[in-house]
């Protein structure tokens, strides 16, 4: 075997597992949900999806947008969680990692403590928050009663309030991303800070003009993660309300339609899947656009 053939064989063999995994786990399912979103496929014809008639090809989409009672509720919630995730988690991650980078006494302890919620899983945190919110013995109820004596309602069943109750169960726990950002801050060369000191940049100014611009790529990653994890929220919804009282998310209705429901609607679940991928792509594009915008305006400033 000559060298060239050996090289080709090596490349092929080393890429093969990843490619198989991509084809089986991503490409094939994506094509399947795209194709079956134009099919009639539910609990009545489980084994054989049937293509919809040509004049009514978009029936599933029409059903989802116009008739399915939970789609708009789920979309509103999921987008809301994505937005809240970005607005709270990104500044929080940034502030905490900058503070941790100062090496104050006790910051190692605080850093290790802050990751604990990420280590014990969002499922466990969901279950713990379910207990915290319990109307009969939870401490949150006790706090509410200090302001509103005699309040006995279960806040997880109060529409609107329960949206924020779910937010509180996940939004403050960003230990892993904080450590990633902290790593990037530590990687900033000390000379830059020395130069800044000579130029008179102190305190907040130093963070705004040196630290933050230098870790911007990681901030973008943190933003993307916050937005997508909020948009795809499932665990907290499942554990806290199980979709009751207007708290369904997109992931929740997909799983309900595809598996949990007694009248499973595979095609319609897949249709929502297509919509979910599409909106997810829009969200990511918006984030990319916003970050490229800032870079451009920054460049203009420097140019001037």
């Amino acid at each position, binding site marked *: 075997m000559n060298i060239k053939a050996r090289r080709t064989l090596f490349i092929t063999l080393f890429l093969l597992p990843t490619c198989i995994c991509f084809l089986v786990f991503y490409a*094939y399912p994506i094509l399947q949900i795209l194709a079956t979103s134009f099919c009639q496929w539910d609990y009545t014809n489980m084994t054989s999806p049937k293509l919809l008639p040509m004049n009514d090809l978009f029936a599933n989409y029409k059903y989802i947008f116009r008739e399915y009672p939970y789609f708009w509720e789920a979309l509103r919630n999921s987008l809301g969680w994505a937005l809240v995730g970005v607005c709270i988690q990104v500044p929080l991650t940034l502030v905490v990692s900058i503070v941790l980078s100062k090496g104050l006494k006790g910051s190692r302890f605080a850093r290790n403590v802050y990751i604990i919620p990420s280590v014990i899983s969002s499922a466990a945190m969901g279950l713990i928050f379910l*207990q915290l919110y319990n109307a009969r013995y939870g401490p949150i109820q006790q706090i509410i009663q200090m302001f509103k004596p005699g309040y006995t309602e279960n806040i997880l069943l109060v529409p609107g309030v329960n949206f924020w109750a779910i937010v509180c169960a996940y939004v*403050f726990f960003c230990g892993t991303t904080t450590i990633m950002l902290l790593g990037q801050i530590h990687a900033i060369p*000390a000379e830059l800070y020395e130069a800044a000191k000579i130029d008179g940049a102190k305190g907040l100014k130093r963070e705004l003009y040196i630290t933050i611009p230098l870790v911007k790529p990681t901030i973008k990653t943190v933003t993307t993660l916050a937005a997508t994890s909020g948009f795809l929220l*499932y665990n907290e919804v499942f554990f806290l309300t199980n979709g009751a009282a207007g708290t369904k998310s997109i992931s929740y209705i997909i799983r309900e339609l595809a598996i949990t429901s007694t009248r499973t609607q595979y095609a319609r679940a897949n249709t929502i899947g297509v919509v979910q991928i599409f909106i997810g792509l829009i969200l990511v594009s918006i984030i990319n656009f916003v970050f490229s915008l800032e870079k451009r305006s920054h460049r203009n400033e420097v140019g001037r």
Partner: protein
Amino acid sequence: MKKIKENNPMGVQKGEAIFGYIVLGVICVIALFPIIWVVLASFKGDLLAEPGFTLPKALVFDGYIKVLTKLGIWKYFLNSAITATCGAVLSIIMLSMSSYIIARFQFRGKKLITACLMATMFVPVSALTFPVYNLIKNMGLFDTRLGLIFVYTCSGIAISFMVIRNYFATIPVELEEAARIDGCTYVQTFVKIMFPIARPGIFTAGVLAWLQLWNEFYWGSLLVIDRTKMTVPAILSQFTTSFSTDYNGLLSAIVVIIIPPVILFCCCSKFFIEALSGGAVKG
């Protein structure tokens, strides 16, 4: 410590320090409040008689005795450990092979493969719920740990791919060339030279992947229905129904299930933090 000082040549001002300590205090409260409450409440005999955030009047261990003797909690930890570790290891081996090729070789279709792998980051797994569920069923892997390991191996590949490829890209090409001149085959160069050198990057990706899978709930609760094969997050979803009004038992079970990961983390926090921060933060 040295590194931190280098990063702050002017030292920290007083105002900054006060703000800093407030932030540190707040994050500790945020992280510990739920856990401390659960631990306190789990010792209360009658939770309804002593609601809220109070110290238990008398320590009651009934719940713990019941949980430790009946629930067989180790089974679930073992399942979680097996599926998360196998999934992460297989996924990392597979991706370090392909990201090495992508980082080092020129060939036709390279751009396409890279684009496909990166695009998987934006494919939400929940959108693929039914096709994957169906696939696992057709493969005869439904309700087995093997099926879960398969799904875990394939999920979250984009982040690992990115981390490992970026690490390979930082290694000087000369090292490889030297190995090739010394007569190493392609496989030997990878196994003996490149893989060991890229270990820090591969570790980062591995720890990230493992943490993700250890906490994974969506597939864990979907693809396994036999209780004895369930992972820790999946079994948690059964707690509220199986304990129903036995609050003491429920809270004790929660405590028992969150303590081992916390202890594990405290023992290896150095390792975790160095890996997550890409080696920049010392544990």
